Structures are given as structure tokens and as C-alpha cells.
């Protein structure tokens, strides 16, 4: 039997990797992947809690999160294509038209 704490630690580590990825990586595609990683870390949390608390709510929540994540990524990729057409780049650092 794997204890709950293992799952929570795994999820925290994944989430942290995702956060670092969003903040540090230059390519928008990797940033998108990092956001997915964060969302899936949350899913692990929900499923683990749901199992150990013997409550179904967490698993239901995961279905919603998965659906929303899919929609979000679709919109993200569409925006990526739009910006690539205008600028021929997907590098975060080159998107600096607006600064104060």
C-alpha cells in the first residue's frame, strides 16, 4: 500500500517543475506543456485524495479539469499559430511590443 503522502509529494514536485517551466523556458510550446504539467499535478492530487477519503467528488473534479485543460490547450495552440503568422517566432522574449 502506497501512502497518501507519496502521491502528494509527487504532485507537489510535478507542480513545481511546471511552475519553473512556465517561468524559465523561452519557447511558448514548452510553456504550454509546463502548464499541462501543473494541471496534471492537480489531477494526481484530486485522485489520490478521492481514493483515500473514499469520496467520489475528487474524481468528478478530475473529469472537469481534463476537459477544461483540453479546451485551454486548443485555444493556446490557436493563439500560437496566430502569433507565428504575424511574427515568425514563438520565443517568449521576442514578444515585447508593449512595455512601459
Amino acid at each position: 500500500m502506497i501512502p497518501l503522502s507519496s502521491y502528494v509529494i509527487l504532485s507537489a514536485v510535478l507542480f513545481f517543475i511546471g511552475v519553473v517551466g512556465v517561468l524559465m523556458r523561452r519557447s511558448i510550446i514548452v510553456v504550454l506543456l509546463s502548464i499541462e504539467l501543473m494541471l496534471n499535478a492537480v489531477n494526481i492530487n484530486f485522485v489520490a485524495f478521492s481514493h483515500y477519503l473514499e469520496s467520489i467528488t475528487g474524481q468528478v473534479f478530475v473529469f472537469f479539469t481534463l476537459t477544461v485543460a483540453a479546451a485551454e490547450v486548443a485555444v493556446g495552440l490557436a493563439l500560437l499559430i496566430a502569433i507565428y503568422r504575424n511574427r515568425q517566432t514563438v520565443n517568449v522574449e521576442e514578444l515585447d511590443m508593449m512595455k512601459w
Partner: protein
Amino acid sequence: MNMTIPMDNVIALLPEMIIAAFACLVLMFDLMLPQGRKNPLAWFSLAGVALAAFATFRLTHQHISAFADTFQVDPFSNFFKLLFYLIVALVILMSRAYLQQDRIHIGEYYHFILLVLTGMMIMVSATDLMTVYMGLELVSVTLYIMAAMKRYESRSTEAGLKYFVLGSFSSAVLLYGMSLIYGVTGTTNLAAIGAFLGDGVPNSAATVGLIMMVVGLAFKVAAAPFHMWAPDVYEGSPTPITAFMSVAPKAAAFAVILRVMLEAFGGMKSDWEAIFTVIAVLTMAVGAVLALVQTSLKRMLAYSSIGHAGYALIGVVVGDALGTFSVMYYLVIYAVMNLGAFAIIIMLRNQGLMGEELDDLKGLSRTHPWAALFMLVFMFSLAGIPPTAGFIAKFYIFMAAINAGYILLAIAGALLAAVSAYYYIRVIVVMYMQEPETDHVLTAPAGLRLALVFSLLFVIGLGVFPDPLADFAQQAILSF
């Protein structure tokens, strides 16, 4: 297993269903109408909003809990829904000419506005973390697209992408907080979480979850230090969309903050009170100071909108009946006066002029005295100068703070309001004291004029007679 949906649930969800149905129908009618003759879509969307408003009116004073307590119709949610109908109606009225000028896809524009409206209505009615999240995401994902609606323009797509990255990042943080809270309490229902946490069980996981939820929600209302996305996104998005997203989603996020913090984390108020105090002061300071150095009018209004979120946060910190009331009142007034100011910027847009720079307003009082006068009133109101409604709104916020003993917070707010008055007055100086460089050609169709006149009457009317709206808001505050 019995899978029929009780009639009660359908009635509770009726306004949302109407708006969602109209959103889909708009997309369908868009295909039937020939290019260049899409005006009926605006009237059709307005009709949908009016119908939903009628449905909400019928439910005004009812309390209905639907869908296993995940969704609730109560005076609080209805107050916000009526505010959203008003905002959406004003935005639809003021955006037509701009859409044609900037070649924005008209059918999709109305479709997305109605979808955001649906999401916001779900947000304010949500009594479960699940529905909160779904509503929030419907609003956010749709707004990412709307920010980038000028597909061919670099600035607009850049705004959309920045909004997307930071928005989904903050959603993930919020969601992680929700998962921790679920792990601690074993439920996602707000009232049940509140009952479980009681008077603040010292539990580090719950505290971490709470902090992450606060961070996620602070991102959504563009509160400092999580405001970095707002100026870029507001500047790059098409102006009517900037106007829309600087008021409506912000009001919805505040409704969620109020409900989640008071209903689920009411017992842990000592934990979140300090966080929100720091955020509120920082937000007001960032809004007041950074707006001073802006040359772009839209960017200045973005910082102004950050600052206004800071004042509303004071009411959240106070957190009692008067505090809740002052936040609700503030959001209504802020929404209308900000939309009015943006309507003037939309009017300035014509073939030769973007109308988004402060210098574009030079000498507006000579070329168009009426437009300048309208802008003057909105700027006075945003600055909080009597006899405008902006003054009354700030007055209630500070009164709530002083009443509950947050004297220092009220003083900080008043001082920063004085600082921010400077840049609003700078707009007036540019309009009235400087020579015109261009003769402004205003694009002012009837709808936009109607929206402007309504906003002006609203701002002055409530500045002189604040009671009707105050009574209405009083009846709608959250009761436990």
C-alpha cells in the same frame, strides 16, 4: 437510477440557459446574414440579454439551491447578474462602429461576449469549488480568444498570448489550492468547507491551499503583485474588448472572492485578512504610481483599473456586511464610469487615428466640446471627486473600513486616491489647456451615444441620489 432533473433546477438555471442558447444562435444567424449586413446580430444579442434579465428579475428575491448544492440563486448572485446584463448591453451598444472599422468578425464577437456572460453568471452563482472553476475557465478561455480578435495585428495576438499564459498559470495555481482544500476537508462545497474548517483549525495544508487560492483569485482581478499581465493585455486588445474585460470579469472575480472567502474561509479570516491587506495596499500603490508615467491612454486606464481593484479589496478585507455592501456598490459604479471613459476612446478611433494615446486628446474641448465634457465627468468620477458617483463609491469603502477599525487602511486608501487624482486631471488638462493638433473626426453612431448618455446620467444621478442603488445592494448582501 432516477436521472430526471427537478424543475427547480431548470428554473434556477434559466437565465444562464437563455444566454447560452442565444450565444449559439448568434453564431448560426451569423452564417445566414450576408457580409456587411450583420447589424441584426447586435439587436438579437441585446434581446437575449433582455430576456435573461427578465428571467433574473422573476427570481430576484428567491433562494434556490440547485444541482446538489453546486449552484445557487440568491439576491447576491442576482445583483451581480443584473450588473453583468447592464455591462454587456452597454458594451454591445458602443462597439459596433469599432468592429466594422477594425475588421473584427462580428458574429464571433457577440458569440464570445455572450459566452463570457454565461461564465460570469455561473461564477457568481457557484457554491461549489467545481462550479467556481468551471465558470472561471469559461470566462478566461473565452477572453483569451477575445483579446486576440484582431488576428492580423501583432499587438492584439501578443496580448492574447500573454493573457493566455498568465491566465492559465493562475488557474492552475488556484486549482492546486482547491485540491489541497479538498484533501483537508473532503468536500468541495463551500458551506461544507466552512463548517469543517470552523473557527480556523491550525492546519498547514489548509493554509497553503488558502494562500494558493488567494493568489489565483488575485491574478484574476489583476491585484498587485499579480497584475503584470493587465497593462499589456488591456493595451493590446481591441478597445471595446478592453472596456469589457476591465469591468465585467473583474466584478465576477470579486463576487467569487467574497463568496469563497466569507462562506468557506470565514473561520480563517485572521489568516487571509493580512494577505488581502498587503495586496490591497500594494494594488492601490501600483495603480496610482505607475499610471503617472504612462503616455498611452489605454495603458493609463489599465493601471487605473488595477488601482480600483485595490479600493474594492479594502471592502473584502473588512469582510462584514458593510464591507460586502461597499464592494458591491463600488463595482457597479466603477463598471459604468470606466465603460463611459472607454466609450470616448472608441469614439476617437477613425481611419487616420488610433485614438489610444494621451496626446490624441489634445484640444478635444475645442474640436468637440461635448465629448470633452463627457470625458471630464468620467475622469472626475474615476478620481472620486464629488458630486459624481465615484466619490460616493469611495466614501462607502472608506466608511466601511473606518467603521470596522481599519483606520490605517482607510488613510492609505485616501492618500493614494489623492495621488491617482493627478493623472485623471492630467487627461482633463490635455483636453482643455492644449491646442488641438488634429481635428478629431468622431465616429459616434446612435448606439454609442445612447451608451454614453446613459453612463453620464448614471454617474451623475447616483452621485447626487445614491440611495436607490444603495438600498438595492443592501438587500443583496450575503447573509449567513
